[in-house]
């Protein structure tokens, strides 16, 4: 069971990484190609903007799940840092549960949003592509992020130490250095 979970976890992490890297590099290629095409060959890529928007949605929601997995959230820890270990653990357990449930609710909401867009059959203006297919990544990303927080909650309850996610303990996450 444990090895199965671990395999699933590794597998999904690999997928997340691939999506993020590909989306970022594709964004660069798409934008530069559009500029070169317009400047040098008088040919714009008419869907360039739309493709970038799709990629941004993918990066944001998949990247969010990945960031949560890596324990990298923007938090204001001034007060938290001044607490003792017991209180820290209690607070972090509460945070992982509450945040996980909040994200679960948002996942549920986003499933409905995607279904609504599907019903209404909204098409992207340039490519005439069904938007719901792209937006399906929203519930997936939010759902994965929610799952990470809920797993962290379980880890916090069942294990010693403070967990930000399944694999990352408090204090182990690299700082967000832009």
């Amino acid at each position, binding site marked *: 069971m444990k090895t199965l979970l671990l395999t699933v976890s590794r597998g999904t992490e690999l997928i997340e990484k691939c999506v993020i*890297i590909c989306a970022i590099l594709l*964004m*660069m290629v*798409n934008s530069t190609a559009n500029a070169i095409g317009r400047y040098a060959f008088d040919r714009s890529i008419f869907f360039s903007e739309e493709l970038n928007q799709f990629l941004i949605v993918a990066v944001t929601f998949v990247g969010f799940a990945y960031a949560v997995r890596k324990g990298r959230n923007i938090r*204001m820890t001034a*007060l938290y*840092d001044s607490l003792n270990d017991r209180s820290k653990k209690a607070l972090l357990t509460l945070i992982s549960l509450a945040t996980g449930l*909040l994200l679960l609710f948002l996942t549920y909401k986003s499933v409905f949003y995607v279904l609504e867009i599907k019903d209404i059959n909204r098409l992207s203006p340039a490519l005439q592509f069904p938007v719901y297919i792209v937006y399906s990544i929203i519930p997936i990303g939010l759902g994965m992020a929610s799952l990470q927080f809920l797993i962290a909650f379980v880890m916090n309850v069942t294990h010693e130490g403070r967990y930000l996610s399944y694999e990352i303990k408090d204090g182990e996450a690299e700082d*967000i250095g*832009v």
Partner: protein
Amino acid sequence: MEFLGDVIAGELDIYVMTFTLVVVMVVLLFLSFPMVVPLAIGALIGLLHFSQSDTGVIIQQMVTGISPNALIAVPMFILAADIMARGHTANNLLGLIEAFFGHRRGGLPITACISCTLFGSVSGSTQATVVSVGQIMRPKLLKAGYKDSFVMALIINASDIAFLIPPSIGLILYGTLANTSVGELFIAGIGPGIVLALLFSAYCYVYSVYQGDQIALVEKKTTAERLQSIRKALLPLGFPALIVGGIYSGAVTPTEAASFSVLYALIVECVIYRELKLNDVLDAALSTGLITAVVFILVGMGQAFSWYISFEQIPQGLLEPLNLEGASDEYILFVIALCFFIGCMFVDSLVVLVILTPIFVPIVDASGLDPVLVGVMVTLQMAIGSATPPFGCDIFTAIAIFNKPYLEVIRGTFPFIVILMLMSALLIFFPGIALFLRDLALL
């Protein structure tokens, strides 16, 4: 008591709503919930408790928040900065300044300050600047005898200049949210950025004179060494030339300039310097995606929250007693700067930007204020905010990379904050600092 009753009953009154939302969000923030949570809870309480409206709009608005095309520039500039931070760029830029100023009184801190400004012209983010310039400069400054509190405050605050000097994530986000030309914002940021660098340098000089006896001077570089440093800095300096030149020759939009900057960074670091391998580039892309996501999820949730407050027209109601309509430009600019300054003290600059910008845009449009000037002022406040306690992302970055406790990192900040406030005042009374170059470019 009656007021609390209204809160519980969900009375649709702007003061009751504002009070409730602010209290809940501040409490969650201080409990160290991930930043996205207070924003989401704020929007949810508003929609469910006060307006009894459908909450699906949160998802819709998250997508809207991250949809503007100009936002593409954010990951692109982060990626370019990341690639350069892994490579030679920062080192070479710094070598150039040190070769000319290093030996003078206050030379080393002035070098740090100018290097931050220069690195700012190749990087869109203040944190990248803290990391790349800070890591190289701090040991040198400490060795020369400067106090760590001064050194860390200097690096954090000088890195803020990167926010004003194009490219800048702050200016891009403001341009998107306020529908103002990013190109114009970019060029208008240069003036204040340079003035700020000069003010900081002046402070470094004064500080060095007063602490003169404890500080060693660096040996003067020979002409040959100087020429060598110029040669090494040429390629990195091609970067700002590419961005500014590309945009103002009309070849590319600011958004596209961002992706060309990645291309340039790749060519310089991978092909010319041969410093980076394919794996480094993939790593950089992954880390860029992660940071982008963390920022954009906030931008998205911030949009959802600001959608709600604009749905209930809370900002209009709150701003009414301030009499902004028909007020003087200076007064409006002052109020805007103050609101952003206070907001950025407690909350991440990006979150403040996302929430406050839509509130002020209609007021700016109705007044005679130049939206570009407002954008630069707002960005200056965001820059100040990222270095100002209690909450500042640059402070946190410094804590992480210098491995020093919070209080020690912020100890030397006060003089810099005074200078930054002076800069804000200068911008209010001499808007030409920002607009001069823009007007010149538009001729």
